[in-house]
């Protein structure tokens, strides 16, 4: 009896080593989720949203452009509703075809509706039989630090890709989205984000060439299914919500509050092809003046820029820390670029 128990214990032990267990759980999740992931191939006549800064033509920007080939979608109803990222269907569309596991021919898809603020779109295909829909995860029980898989397309949707990560934060973009560290790319955006048991948490969204977090940087987002369900009626009935894009003159920086005993706005980060960077500003510099307007906080800088147009040249005064811990004032002339809000 005791030998028998020992043997059984060993089997369980051997099969439950963490790495083996995780590998098994990943394979199970992929097997469960793959049939509900579709490959979406979009043909376009124009694709202004799919290109990186400066038209995607700078030395560094090629990988920021939308690549050719299919992207991902998630089956959300047995009668052929498919959710995907609105980014995936942006541009002037000629056709959308959807490949579903188990069907030899791709389906022509109809774009029902989209919401570009939430980065979600709804497609419809007419399949001759019921399509597999994933069970939903209990979002109320989901916590930061829980594991999440992002499952994406492959040219053969039966062989979907799977990326592993954790839930990084639960409240992004006003709370409609969560954040995870599984690698999000132009191929798997639109695919399902699922828990360990393959239950649907959300749809992978909010990737664009001009986002500072970019691709595969470990900062991915998903529209929560609870929020997707709220949007579903308007998406189904043809709702088309554009992003309220504000185009404004920009220094191309991310601002942060500076030290309390200093006035000014700190350059926390520089955007790709940042005009400020070209003018010699660096991360950590503190901007104190724009064209004789004193800058004490972010609002002041926003106000100073509101009065300018892209292409205008402004004189910027800033402070830079020296090696001995002091700050030295310098001036730079910045040619403002155009910036979109997102």
């Amino acid at each position, binding site marked *: 009896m005791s030998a028998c*128990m020992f043997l*059984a*214990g060993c*089997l*369980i032990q051997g*099969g*439950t*080593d*963490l790495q083996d*267990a*995780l590998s*098994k*759980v990943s394979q199970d999740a992929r097997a469960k989720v793959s049939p509900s992931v579709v490959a979406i191939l979009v043909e376009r006549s124009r694709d202004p949203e799919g290109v990186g800064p400066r038209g995607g033509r700078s030395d*560094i920007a090629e*990988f920021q452009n939308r690549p050719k080939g299919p992207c991902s979608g998630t089956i959300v109803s047995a009668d052929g509703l498919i959710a995907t990222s609105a980014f995936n269907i942006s541009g002037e569309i000629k056709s959308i075809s959807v490949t579903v596991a188990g069907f030899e021919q791709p389906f022509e898809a109809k774009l029902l509706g989209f919401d570009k603020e939430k980065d979600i779109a709804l497609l419809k295909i007419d399949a001759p039989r019921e399509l597999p829909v994933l069970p939903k995860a209990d979002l109320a029980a989901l*916590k*930061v*630090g*829980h*594991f999440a898989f992002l499952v994406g397309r492959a040219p053969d949707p039966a062989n979907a890709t799977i990326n592993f*990560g*954790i839930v*990084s*934060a*639960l*409240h*992004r*973009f006003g*709370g409609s989205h969560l*954040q995870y*560290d599984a690698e999000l790319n132009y191929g798997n955006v639109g695919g399902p984000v699922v828990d360990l*048991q393959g239950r649907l948490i959300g749809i992978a969204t909010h990737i664009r060439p001009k986002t*500072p*977090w*970019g691709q*595969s*940087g*470990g*900062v991915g987002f998903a529209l929560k299914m609870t929020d997707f369900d709220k949007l579903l009626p308007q998406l189904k009935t043809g709702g088309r919500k554009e992003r309220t894009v*504000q185009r*404004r003159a*920009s220094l191309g920086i*991310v*601002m*942060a*509050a500076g*030290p*309390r*005993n200093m006035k000014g706005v700190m350059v*926390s*980060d*520089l955007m790709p092809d940042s005009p400020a960077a070209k003018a010699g500003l660096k991360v950590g510099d503190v901007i104190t003046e724009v064209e004789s307007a004193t800058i004490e*906080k*972010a*609002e002041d800088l*926003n106000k100073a*820029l509101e009065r300018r147009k892209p292409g205008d040249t402004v004189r910027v005064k800033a402070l830079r*820390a020296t090696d001995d*811990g002091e700050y030295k004032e310098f001036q730079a002339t910045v040619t403002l670029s155009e910036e979109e*809000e997102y």
Partner: protein
Amino acid sequence: MTAALLTLLVAPVQEPDDAALQRVLAFQDRLQKVVEKVRPAYVFIGGGSGVCISKDGWVLTNHHVAGPTGREWEVRFTGGKAYNGRVIGHDPLHDISLIKLDTTDTLPYAELGDSDALQIGQHVIAVGNPFMLGTGQGGQPTPGGHGRTDGNWDPTITFGIVSALHRHQDAYSDAIHTDCQINPGNSGGPLITLEGKVIGINGRIAMRFHNRVNTGIGYAIPSNLIRNFMDAYKAGGRVRRGYIDGVTVTNCGHEGYENSGEYGDGVLVVGLTEDTPAAKAGLKEGDIIVKIAGHRVVNDNRFHGVLSTYPQTSIVPIGVKRKVAGEWKEFDLKVWLGDPNHFKPPEDPKRD
């Protein structure tokens, strides 16, 4: 005994598939509890991050986030509670600033761990504010701002492993290399073990094409380095990194020297100045330094790297191999680190 037997009897009933899932769910639960425990100790500082390491408000961050001694910051904990803080000590090369918060509150904190106990492959988490997603722009309204959120002071947690130890990357002389996703805004934030201990302060990433996004390579300043300098930080001002004055070394396996061993054995002493700390420690030309304070020295990069994790005026043991009458002998010496023009070295470091 009865309880143990019962567990054994119950466990085999589960399906093998379920066992794998249960194992991962248990690990997920452990990870989530660590996140829950350490997340409150995270702080937002300007455009970067920090971590509170004591209940009375000592906060670690990067020098490139908080700047030099004397600078004052509004520091906010996860959830948004704000305190005023002041940089008490700084180290621009190791990229550490120590802040003291001005409060009598008992604060959430995470303890410093032992970075020498880290294993390559060990799971770790990073807490940070990449792209300021958790704050908006310093909590300011952000028309046209990047990373627009609600300013709800909600940090980002990322998960990964220790990829390598003792990396010498520019001035980061003993960095922990991790694949935890860290990005601009993570700077100054903690790298944490699954025991909930802070074992590093994240500060650098490897970038491609100047694209400021993680590529799977991040570097953290190890907790033991920070601990070595803690008294110096708390004493205020700038700190000085250790080195052995009066010795010139080269990599082992050097063609130009006899008995120089194989590359990787250590470093070969090829020059020694009389009446310096190196000479007083008992080093001789031709010695091979194989260890410093218990750390194996593989090459000159690591030699300088490990020495600079100690402040000047420290006395550290070094392991030396010397050829005596045709035989290699291995022994320990004690050496004083520092600049003798700036600090007074002891006459005999062995007695200290």
